[in-house]
Structures are given as C-alpha cells and as structure tokens.
C-alpha cells in the first residue's frame, strides 16, 4: 500500500477539519460563551492542524493509488476525523468522558444521531452547532468534499469516491470527478439552504433552523431540543421536515437529471418507486393502527408520515414518543431501519436498491427450484444487473449480518446494566443503519449514556462500518484478515 500518499492526503483532510472548526470557534467568541469552550475549540484546532501538518510532510515517492489504498484512506479519515472532532466536546466539559465524546462525534459524522447526552438544551451554542455540523459534513462525505475542492484529479480518485459513497454501484454525474463532486455539493447545499429558509418562515429561531437543517440534510437526527422536533410543537415544521427527510433519502442522481431537464429519466428511477412504495405501505399500516387506538385520523397520518420518513431516511428525529405505540407499528419501524434510503443519498441502511436486488434474486432462486432449467437475469430499471453485482450484494448482506450478530453478542455483555434483548438488538441495528433512536431505554426519549465503554466502542465501530458500507473499516484490519502471502502479492503491484 502507498502509505506515504495515504498519510499525505490524510494530512490535507485533517487541515480541512481544522478550518471547519473555525466556524464554531468564532461562534463561541460571538456568543460570549464560557472561556473554557473557546479554549477547547482553540486547542482542538491546534491539535488537529499540527497532526495534519505532520502527516502532510509525507512526500509520496510514487503516485500509484489502487482500490485498497482508497478504502484504507477513507477508513482512516473517518476514524481520525471523529477522534479529533470529539476533542471540543471533551475539552469544553460538555461531554467530559472522551469515549462518550468519541461516540457522539462518530454518531455525528456517520449521521446516525444516537446520543449519549441526557440534557441537551443547556449546552453552549457553539458545541450544539459543531454537533449538527458533523452531520452536514458526514452526510455527503468529507472526501467527496475534498474531491470537490481539489483542482485536478486522476482516475484513481474514483476509488476514494466509491469507498465513501453509499450504494452497490457508484457512478459519476459528469465525466470529471471534481465536477461531479461539485455538482453533488451544490445540490446538497442548495437543498439545505431552502430548508433553513422554510424552517425560519415557520417561526423557528435562526440557530435552530440551521442546526436542524444540517441534521436533516445529512439524515442525522441530532436536535438542539431534548425531545427532538416534538419540542417545537408545530405541524408546519413537522411537515416541512418530513418532506425534506424524504428528499434527502433519494439518490442525488435523480436531482441532477431533474436540473438537466431530463425529467422522464428521473421519474423512471426504479429505486425511488420502491422507496416511495415502501413508505406508502408503512404509513398506511401505522396510520390505521394509530387511528384504531383512539387517535385523531389526521394527527395519526401526520405523525405516522413523520416517523416513517424519519426512520427510512435514517434521520432519527421524533415527533412523538413511538415507544408508546403498539408492537405492530414498532415492528414496522424496526423493519424500515434495515431498508434505509436510496443509494447515492445521504442516508444509511442497507439501501433500497440492494433490498430490491436481493428480493428479486431470492424470487429467482425460488423459481429456479420450481423449474431448474430456467435462466433468468435480475433486472433493475429494465436493465440486467451484472451477476457480479448481485453476488456482491449477497455477500454484503452476509458480512452485514455477521457483523451485526457479533456486535449483538458483545453488547449483550452489558446485561448487568438491565438492558433487555430488544434494547441490545435495537442498539446495534440503529447504529449500523445510522438511524439514531431504537426502542426501550434508547427510544426517542432515551439515550445511550448507560452503555458500558466496551459497548460504546463496538457501537462506534458499527456506525462507521454502516456508513462506509463495511469494506473500508475492515481494511484497517487486513493484517488479521488477509493471509500474509496474499498481502505481499498485492503489495508488489
């Protein structure tokens, strides 16, 4: 592996993180916050820029950059970004324990939105801003941002884009990668800006409009209020956020086609059809269920819509305590967590396209059992899906299940803290799918503060693995996974 080049790039990324920290730093001065907060940001910026500058000193001897280098760079970037991003929380005393702060930051960057904080509202504004800002940065991806600002790219940068962007197949919008990344960020920023304005119009204060817009855009779910969006008590705000959560869960390619006037192609996207279909079914089930249990129909519809959008887009906001819902409605939400949003969006989960392909290839196997000589190709949007892609999706599901099972097992060691089985499984599912809340103690009103240190580390790993779609995180452990013989062969390249 070309470590020198990887660390050189890593240095640049950390320096960018230092620059991004300037915003909350300036805010902490403007809001005349406790001097400790100001100093916390200053020290964090200094630390991250020093380490970044040191990394940047690595002058790459060769320019070769292969897929494995891309994965490795992406994984290291996310771990280190979170490691340094946790410093302001820790040093300012907002989250005194470093592991807690790390968990919170990982949750931010991966746009999960699981929190260990019990009391949010009293925190300094700059800290709350940084918390929401991590969602915004992590949503589209920090490396995509780097690609967007660097002037010249080689083809090998595609490996980085592929490692960071969600979905089974990653394409480009236009022929130049830099231009593609710029278009993505332009659309992302424009949509976020529109949301800020719409929230402000609805009477939300500026600060809350911005932080909530960030949390929605990245499909994160951190809110500046203790009881999330419910705390604003406004139907208008709920509806606006519902719509935007759904929008940010759609593949950004669709928006690109729309802006290009290729509306027919955009409306033909099969993944979006499934996504909207699943939402419609889930909303219907929950609305009926809620209406039957003595709620007003329109209220039920609105709440059901909000909660379904929040979970399937993997945002994790809540407009009600769904912990109090019936098992049927809760089970519906639980299943939505696995499905997640569309590929190429800012959301998490398995991705609708993967589920679609899995279901189709599953059906094909059933048909094949019935008629062993039949030959059939899995199709998406009328086009045959490459058999290698089908296989990689199946393999993805297998690794996903194994990681999930192993995590559940480790978290279950926490039993002495009184966690039920549902909470144990729920915590892993919500973290791996980057949703945020789960059920029981960690439901919409709860938090993750009661988990042990070990569990928090495992859950942090799960969040990163879920956001980066598993493979990059495992690159950090290639030493232990790939036999030495094979590694030396691939290093010879």
């Amino acid at each position, binding site marked *: 592996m070309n470590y020198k080049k990887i660390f050189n790039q890593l240095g640049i990324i950390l320096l960018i993180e230092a620059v991004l920290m300037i915003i909350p730093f300036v805010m902490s001065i403007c809001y005349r916050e406790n001097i400790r907060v100001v100093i916390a940001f200053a020290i964090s910026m200094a630390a991250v820029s020093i380490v970044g500058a040191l990394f940047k000193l690595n002058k790459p001897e060769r320019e070769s950059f292969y897929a494995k280098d891309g994965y490795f760079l992406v994984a290291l970037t996310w771990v280190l970004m979170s490691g340094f991003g946790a410093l302001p929380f820790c040093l300012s005393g907002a989250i005194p324990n470093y592991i807690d702060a790390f968990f919170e930051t990982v949750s931010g960057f991966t746009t999960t939105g699981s929190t260990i904080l019990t009391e949010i509202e009293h925190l300094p504004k700059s800290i709350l801003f940084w918390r929401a800002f991590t969602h915004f940065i992590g949503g589209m991806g920090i490396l995509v941002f780097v690609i967007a600002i660097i002037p010249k790219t080689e083809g090998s940068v595609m490996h980085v884009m592929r490692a960071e962007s969600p979905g089974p197949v990653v394409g480009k919008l236009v*022929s130049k990668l830099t231009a593609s990344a710029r278009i993505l960020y332009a659309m992302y920023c424009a949509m976020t800006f529109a949301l800020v304005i719409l929230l402000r119009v609805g009477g939300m204060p500026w600060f809350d409009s911005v932080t909530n817009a960030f949390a929605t855009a990245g499909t994160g779910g951190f809110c500046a209020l203790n009881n999330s969006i419910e705390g604003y008590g406004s139907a208008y705000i709920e509806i606006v956020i519902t719509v935007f959560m759904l929008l940010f869960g759609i593949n950004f390619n669709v928006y690109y086609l729309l802006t290009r006037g290729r509306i027919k192609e955009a409306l033909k996207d099969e993944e979006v059809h499934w996504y909207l279909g699943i939402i419609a079914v889930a909303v219907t089930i929950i609305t009926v269920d809620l209406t039957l249990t003595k709620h007003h129909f329109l209220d039920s519809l609105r709440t059901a819509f909000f909660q379904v959008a929040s979970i399937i887009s993997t945002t994790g906001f809540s407009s009600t305590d769904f912990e109090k819902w019936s098992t049927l409605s809760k089970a519906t939400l639980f299943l939505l967590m696995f499905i997640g949003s569309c590929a190429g969006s800012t959301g998490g989960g398995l991705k609708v396209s993967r589920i679609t392909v899995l279901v189709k290839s599953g059906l094909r196997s059933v048909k094949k059992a019935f008629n062993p000589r039949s030959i059939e190709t899995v199709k998406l949007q009328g086009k045959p899906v490459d058999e290698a892609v089908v296989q990689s999706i199946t393999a993805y599901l297998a690794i996903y299940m194994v990681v999930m099972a192993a995590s559940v097992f480790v978290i279950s060691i926490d039993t002495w803290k009184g966690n039920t089985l549902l909470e144990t499984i729920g915590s892993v599912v919500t973290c791996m799918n980057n949703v945020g809340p789960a059920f029981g103690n960690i439901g919409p009103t709860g938090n993750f503060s009661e988990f042990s240190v070990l569990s928090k580390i495992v859950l942090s790993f799960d969040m990163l693995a879920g956001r980066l779609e598993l493979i990059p995180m495992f690159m950090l452990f290639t030493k232990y996974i790939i036999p030495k013989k094979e590694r030396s062969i691939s290093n010879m390249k």
Partner: protein
Amino acid sequence: MYIIIVGQGKLGSTLTAQLAKEGHDIVAIDIKSSVITNIVDTYDVMGICGNGATVEILEEAGAKKAKLLIAATASDELNILCCTFAKNLGTVHTIARVRNPDYSKQRDFLMKKIGINTIVNPEFETANEIARIIRFPSAASVDSFSSGRLEIAKIVIPEGNPLHNMPVFEVRKKFKQKVLICAVQRQNSVTIPSGDFVLQQKDSISITGSRNEITAFMRAIGIYKKKIRNVMIVGGGRIGLYLAKLLSETDRNIKLIDSDEERCHQLTSALSDVTVICGDGTDQNLLDELNLANQDALVALTGIDEENIIVSLYAYSKYLNKVITKVDRHSYSILTDLGLETVISPQLIASSIVTRDVRALQNSADKSEIHALYKLVGGNVEAIEFSVPYDASYENIPFKQLEILPDLLIVAIIRNGKIIFPDGDTAMVGGDRVIVVTAGRILDDLHDIFA
C-alpha cells in the same frame, strides 16, 4: 472539450488515456462492462456500458452536445454507423477508424457524402511511416513537415561517436551543417536542449533540417547508412500487406513471411514483385535459410509483441542496417534499454492524427491552423506545424521582444519554400509555416507559445 470515445480496445484506451490527461471531458463507451470499470478506475472519465452504435446510448453519452466522437471499435461497419448516428444527433466532428482495405477506396465517399470528418487507418499510416524510415535508413525515425521541405529525424548517438561529450552549440560550428537539435532523450527523461547542453553517447536526439542537410550531417558524424534494397517483413497482416505494396513500387527486393497458408495465397494475389514465404517467421532456422544476414532491413510485424522483439534482437545480432519493431504495448519503457532503435506503435501513430484533429477543433479567434503534429520520443514530445494567420497580434515582432514559454523551441520557419532557423531578430509573418517542438505543453494555437 466534450469528447465521446466508442470502443476501448488498444486504440480507444490509448486515446482515452491521452485526452483525459490533456483535461478534456471524456465519455468512454464499450460493450464490455469489465473494460469500462477498468477505464473509469484508471482515468478521470465517465464510462457507459453498451453498444455505441445505438441512438439511446449515444444520447445518454451526450452526442447532442459533443464536439468530437471517435469510433474505434473492432468493426469498421460499426464505426461508420456510429459516426453517422452521432453526426445526425449533432456531434460537431467525427472520426472513424476504418481498416479494411476494401473500404479505403470509399474514403472520399464516406467523408464527403456520409459526413465523417476524418477516417483513420492506423495500419496504413503505420506502413507509411515504416516505408518513410526505410527510405531514410540512417535515422531511427523520420517525420516530415510542409510536404517534405523540412524533416525531423531521430538518431541514437552510437558509442564512440564524435558527438559524445559535445555541447549543443558546438555541433553546428564543427560540422558546418544547417541542422538543429530539437530534443534529446536520455533514459526516460526528455529535454529540449539549450546551447550548453552536453550530448552523450546512447542519447537519442531529434534533428531538424532539409533532407539533404540531414543526410550531409549524418555523413559528417559517420552514421550514414547506405540505401536499403533488400527488406524482409515478418508477419503478413494488414500492415505487412500495405508495407509490401508501398515498398514494391520502389524497386526493392521484398520477402514477406507469414505462417498462414491461406493468408499467403491472399497476399500473393494482392501483390506483385514480392516474394511471399509461408513459414514461421520467428523460427531462427527459417530466417537463416532465407539469408537474414544478407538483408538490409528487417521489419517485425507479427501480432505478438514478444515475437517481434525476439526476431528484432536476432536481426540486430546479424548487424542488419535497419531493424524495425512493431509494438502494441508501447507503455513499457524497457524497449530502448533492450537496444531496439526503431520501435513503431500503430496506436501512437493513430493518436497523433486524432490529437491533431482535437487541437484543431479548439476554438479561438485568429486561429493558426495545425498542418502536422507528430509525437516524438515515446509520445512525450510533440512537434507541431502551424500556419501563421495574417494580422495576428504577434506578427512582425522579433522573437527577442516576445515572451516565449520555456519547454518549447521554435525549430524553424518555412517562408516561400525556404527554411529559416530563427534567432532573436527573426519575426513571424502571415503565411509562414512555423514548426514548434514542445515537451509536456499542450499547444492548440500559436498564441499558446507566449507567456
């Protein structure tokens, strides 16, 4: 510039690599998804998997707004169809690779009636280039400008040559010939030498001048080789056929070897005055039997690079005057280390032609037209012939008053059929042909040479 390249075989991928490096917006199309995946991973281009000769795929690739489409699939018919579709969809300029000799007679029809702008036949161009080298055996390769008035010849300085350890400014003084050294390749680095650059043996240098002056210079430094009369060609593929035809028109003894009997029959019926031999041209015994040692030149043109290299090395060991090796995988840099002097790659030759079109398509006001573009020394250095437009801003201003970029050299000006080697007091005049050599810069226009 927005460019679509259909077919990512040897030629297509070479063009994709080169044009992507020059910073164009490229859409690469191929029917095989594995090929596209590889291309997208290696170069900053967009890939589309599908049949490039269908309107759907071309529309998806943006043929409506594309400035250039290059069709380089394996099939001539597909390439022609593809260009026709693209032209009708609105692509400004189309280039098709058409290789079948049957279609070479339809060239004019395809260009004038069907509207394909450029038809490239890499095999024919390669044969042409080889024929030019055989006509001028002292040089490793020759490129000509302004219909042969000026030539750039590449030579490798042999061991113990008087040029060894000689600074460039002394060369002209000592040998009293009006030639100019415009590029020097030493191992893998290429420089455009200044006056105090010291030459060394084994350097390959590109020299410019008229044919007579270059020949006289070669005589003076003692590397002149006598005219080639006997040529042995190993491999009777398309290039072999074209080459044998070109050479047989000029009173030479040609032996053409191919291992396929059926092909040999085709060759004999297509050629006259050529000895066609059916046998394995890579077999040492056969080469000896055919009296390789008494030949003047050997051209290795089989479809397998390794075989061409081995046959060439064997021919070098027999001290042939000229050995020409065709290599498709030209990216390997070890070829010159092996001692192969003249290496020819059809992809590089075709890409020179395409590059000329690409440069000429770049728009600018008072555009200076590109008449010729050659890639010297492994594609790193380009020699370009521009015509000076009338009323250009730099007209009639002596070079010493103009700020000219480094890494390039104004080699010569051809005015009224005469070669002028410019100095600080020379100025360009409308109607001149100017030959510029550049290492690493992309020149579309004469404006690009000024700081």
